[in-house]
């Protein structure tokens, strides 16, 4: 069976979108350079020409507003930032214009803009190249926020985002780019706001997003070998959130653990716990739990990131507390052979 990487899936989605719709344009720093934004935009310049695929000045704020204007005038721009952190320069355009346009002009027109942002981690990406700020974007009414975990979803969700008629923040985790999925269902778009249940069980509900889903998969499979079967719900879209799937599962399991890639305070995990606590109060058999990053920026030194991120063994430990079973996590931790600050042996820095 042929396999395909997450980065390649993004690339395929872009090709497909640009092929089917001549109004789709694709730009960002390095969009047409030899590396093609971690391989995701390779081949596009040759196939669609410099008017539809182009590099841009280091002018994130202006270029976002320009994307908004182009979108209002019939184009479907896909803008890419090699790090989410660079997109912070464009918050004014995203929050004051893109997200408000349809609403404040009484529905006259919306902004079909997709902004891809890549979240960094490891190899000293440090405080300003590894921020997970999805809750900040998700807090803004009018923005949709997508966080795929698998190659298949990346493709389907990017297509859905591009052809969505409202602004979508599409967050790609750098550690997912090289992960491979088995096959790709070719022309599938995936509806925004629909979660995917990746594993089923009745011991506990684990809700996850983006790269955390990969750690969760390791954890859930390990737990299963110890007789603890969990539901694993990959959110895929964090605004809007698929409450139905979460609720249905919690009603079955009575236990909830939310995994968030961002720091804890003010995170989406808090939002999920709040809503589940209210809506499933009588179904809950234990207090809802969450695992997220500490309320600190990520330091650069590898010595300071060793225990900073949530990993599979932490998930197993937390679930085993919730189900009151003692499970030794050392074999799980030991099964990882590469250093903690890289996604695999293939990664040797710097980005």
């Amino acid at each position, binding site marked *: 069976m042929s396999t395909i990487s997450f980065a390649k899936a993004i690339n395929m989605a872009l090709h497909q979108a640009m092929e089917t719709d001549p109004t789709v344009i694709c730009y960002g720093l390095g969009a*047409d350079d030899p590396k093609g934004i971690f391989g995701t935009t390779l081949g596009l310049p040759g196939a669609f020409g410099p008017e539809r695929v182009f590099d841009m000045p280091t002018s994130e704020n202006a270029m976002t507003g320009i994307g908004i204007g182009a979108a209002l005038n019939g184009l479907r721009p896909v803008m890419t930032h090699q790090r989410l952190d660079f997109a912070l320069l464009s918050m004014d355009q995203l929050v004051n214009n893109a997200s408000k346009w349809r609403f404040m002009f009484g529905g006259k027109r919306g902004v079909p803009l997709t902004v891809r942002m890549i979240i960094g981690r490891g190899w000293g990406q440090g405080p*300003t190249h590894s921020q997970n700020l999805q809750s900040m974007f998700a807090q803004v009414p009018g923005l949709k926020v997508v966080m795929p975990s698998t190659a298949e979803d990346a493709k389907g969700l990017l297509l859905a985002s591009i052809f969505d008629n409202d602004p979508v923040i599409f967050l790609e985790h750098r550690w997912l780019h090289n992960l491979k999925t088995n096959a790709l269902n070719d022309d599938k778009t995936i509806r925004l706001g629909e979660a995917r249940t990746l594993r089923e069980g009745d011991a506990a509900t684990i809700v996850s997003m983006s790269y955390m889903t990969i750690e969760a998969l390791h954890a859930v499979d390990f737990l299963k070998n110890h007789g603890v079967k969990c539901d694993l719900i990959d959110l895929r879209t964090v605004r809007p959130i698929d409450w139905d799937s979460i609720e249905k599962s919690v009603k079955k399991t009575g236990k909830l653990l939310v995994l968030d890639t961002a720091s804890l305070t003010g995170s989406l995990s808090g939002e999920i716990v709040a809503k589940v606590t209210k809506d499933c109060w009588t179904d809950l058999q234990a207090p809802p739990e969450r695992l997220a990053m500490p309320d600190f920026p990520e330091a*650069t030194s590898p010595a300071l990131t060793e225990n900073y991120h949530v990993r599979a063994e932490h998930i197993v430990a937390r679930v085993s507390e919730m189900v009151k079973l003692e499970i030794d996590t050392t074999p799980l931790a030991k099964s990882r052979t590469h250093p903690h600050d890289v996604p695999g042996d293939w990664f040797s820095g710097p980005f």
Partner: protein
Amino acid sequence: MSIDTQLELLRRIKRIRHVEEEIARRYPEGKMRCPTHLSIGQEGVAAAVGLALSKDDLAVSGHRAHAHYLGKGGSLQAMLAEIYGKATGCCSGKGGSMHLIDEDVGFMGSTAIVAGTVPVGVGLAYGIKLKKHKQVSCVFHGDAVVEAGVFFESVNFAVLKNLPVLFVCENNLYSVYSPLSVRQPPGRSIADMVKGLGISSQSSDGNDASSVYQITLDAIGKIRAGQGPQFLEFSTYRWREHCGPFYDNDIGYRTEEEFNDWKAKDPLTRLRSTLEENGALNSSLENKIDKEIHLEVEAAFQFAEDSDFPEASEAYTDLYAPAITDGASA
């Protein structure tokens, strides 16, 4: 310009070059685990501007800051330890290569977001002005920075308030793999464009370190005389990849010819030849300089390698001033 000054300039360029070459040589060992941007080929500017500034003057920079940090007098040991992620690093291991600071010598910080420190440098200058100090605030930046809105907003304010700021633009033609041609219209002079904001502005050869020194000294003189902010654009070239230790001409974003043309304009070779022609430099003097640098750099790497990593708990310190604690808990 005295021979002694020129020799000092040579020594500084050589020192920066040697440090950067040594980082490049050792980077593949995988012990420096952070993105690292080298200035090999464009050290002339940092060395000359650093020499022209005094220790009291302030400076800020961006992602490619090693040379500026060293030029301003920052501690080599603390810089290398920082790149190695050690507790003895200038940011205690929290910053890494892209975030360097040494307030003892007026190096007020460098950050990784393009143009992020430009307004900060202007704000430092506002402080200088209000405190009626004679210092200059130097903003080191690359050609891509003049594409950022915050650059224009900051220069405007500096001009409006007649602030003691020196903008030093190292125009090395590229922003990562993007040549100027995809970012700015053909035929534009950055210095001329910036002049339109009402700032005194000029451009010149950044690989002629002696002239960079002289031009910078003049600009600093004008700032100290109260003539307001100055913008200097120096054309130069980076030899190695944007980020990382290797050469990358093979990937096709720039030509081998262009690279070789610029390599022939090496600021180090150029200054060395001038000094040799003047009889100010012979091989025994050069050997002595090289040996000193070699020993210093060797010792600094040893220091970085021997230093301890920070305690894991240090990941959760320094968020706020000591008296305030973080109220968050799971």
